[in-house]
């Protein structure tokens, strides 16, 4: 059976068009990759609501801050590795310290960006955005969830970061699926192990749960799209119910969603945890799926981690 796949960035572009149609103060800024991030859709349809800042990410972030103070609602986008990395100082001191209403999108995140190699594979962005006070961080699982997250950003005041990949990924939600910032989404109920995932790893986790079910292991799957603020109640409830946790994310093992879950559990309900993530190494060139497999970001790794963590109970 073939699975329907859409790139998450399409959800970002769609949401921008919806937002601008309803509110002309919304303005999209990009750093020369508008075609990739889909902010180019704004340029085509609402050219007055688009600025290409050129290859100048720090300037992009600073100018967005100025625009926000001038009463506009800027949505900035470029590749996550440059958006979160290169402009980190401006995001920290100019945007977050001032709690400015600037929305930030990191595109082409994760190792699945593929052949461009390690220089372009943002594997640290969630960690360095999550550490900033006032910042909301969302790592959606598919195009529709990316759309909803982007729309939700416009409804709250303050800086927000959304990261998404380049590849078309399986569709796991639809228009009717509930989405609330800060509220984890229960995708599948289970009792032996809680798999908490974000981004493209949500689909992999659901597939892993099916494999585990065949072996009489009941896996709960949670889509923890909002990494910050973390849904403490949902994470703790899952750990209490299942007694152990696997986290799965397309990000470095240190500082990302898995770390956020570990912090939450250490404080509230310590439980064994296994981390499916990039294991403290840089990536390399390759085809997206080859890389996901080579770096252990797939359903078979999740299945193995689930068995391992259950044994640690």
């Amino acid at each position: 059976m073939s699975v329907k796949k859409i790139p998450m960035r399409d959800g970002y572009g769609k949401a921008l068009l919806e937002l601008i149609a309803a509110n002309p103060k919304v303005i999209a800024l990009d750093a020369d990759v508008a075609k990739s991030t889909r902010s180019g859709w704004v340029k085509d349809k609402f050219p007055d609501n688009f600025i290409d800042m050129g290859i100048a990410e720090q300037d992009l972030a600073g100018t967005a801050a100025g625009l926000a103070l001038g009463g506009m609602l800027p949505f900035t986008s470029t590749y996550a590795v440059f958006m979160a990395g290169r402009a980190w100082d401006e995001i920290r001191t100019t945007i977050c310290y001032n709690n400015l209403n600037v929305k930030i999108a990191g595109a082409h995140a994760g190792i699945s960006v593929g052949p461009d190699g390690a220089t372009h594979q943002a594997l640290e962005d969630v960690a360095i955005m999550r550490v900033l006070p006032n910042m909301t961080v969302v790592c959606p699982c598919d195009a529709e969830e990316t759309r909803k997250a982007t729309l939700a950003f416009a409804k709250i005041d303050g800086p927000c970061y959304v990261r998404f990949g380049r590849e078309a990924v399986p569709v796991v939600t639809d228009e009717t699926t509930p989405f609330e910032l800060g509220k984890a989404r229960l995708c599948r109920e289970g009792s032996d192990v809680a798999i908490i995932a974000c981004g493209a790893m949500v689909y992999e986790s659901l597939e892993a749960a099916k494999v585990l079910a065949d072996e009489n292991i009941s896996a709960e799957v949670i889509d923890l799209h909002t990494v910050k603020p973390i849904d403490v109640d949902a994470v703790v409830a899952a750990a209490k119910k299942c007694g152990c946790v696997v986290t799965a994310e397309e990000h470095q093992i240190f500082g990302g969603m898995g770390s956020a879950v570990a912090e939450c559990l250490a404080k509230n309900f310590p439980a064994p945890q296994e981390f499916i993530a990039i294991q403290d190494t840089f990536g390399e060139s390759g085809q997206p799926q080859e890389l996901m497999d080579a770096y252990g970001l797939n359903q078979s790794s999740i299945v193995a981690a689930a068995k391992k963590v259950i044994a640690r109970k």
Partner: protein
Amino acid sequence: METAALQKVARRVRFEAVRMIYEGKEGHPGPALSCADIVATLYFDVMNIRPDQPDWEDRDRFILSKGHGCPIWYATLNERGYNNPKVEHFHLRELGSIFQGHPSMHSGVPGIDMTTGSLGNGIAIGAGMAYAAKAHHKDYYTYVICGDGEMQEGVTWEGVNMAKGRGLDNLVVFVDNNGFQSYKTIEFTIGQNNMADRFRAFGWHTQEINGHDVEQIKAAVTIAKATSGSPHAIICRTVKGKGLSYMENNNKWHKGVPTEEQWEITKRELGGE
């Protein structure tokens, strides 16, 4: 405002800036004094502002990109009536004080349009404000004061490039060209102190003036406002520590606190009327 009155204001805010550093036992007096005449002229002559309504939507905006010079900004805002009642003791850099070591929009000081401290960012942010003004058909101006040292930051030139490309003629950038940075001179550090050449190369409308002559500062702004199509750079030749004999052109005063003896000199040279 009349030249003599402006000069008086500049002298008073210089004294207050040094006083808050003397009392707080921390701060950057040299960089504050070199831009004192520019800040005073902007707030007392040039800018369209309402001190009793600091968030007035149509106000001219001001960014002190060289945030470490903030004692002069705090003193000028106070002198201009932003604090009601006037602040007597600033408690600069002390725990719990609204007068932070670098200016913050959210520490509670009325009139701070932008937080700074990480050098190089003022022009990019100012360009955003200027762009928003044009998009909303507002006629306010955005004024930025940069240090000459911070022009070594790459983001500065990203902002300069963008502001010219977008024709932001409602953006006026002063460069406080005192020739020093934290460690040594600009010349020593990067081998060139050619601020005006750089802005001209980017196509900015560029003027060079004496940054301690309030008449020249006023005139440069008038010329800038009459010139459309390009953002404006006003390169100000200044003296680090200007106004105090023991501080002028002595880079040890990039950061420092006057001794009791030096405070007595300060009172003699800048105190009173």
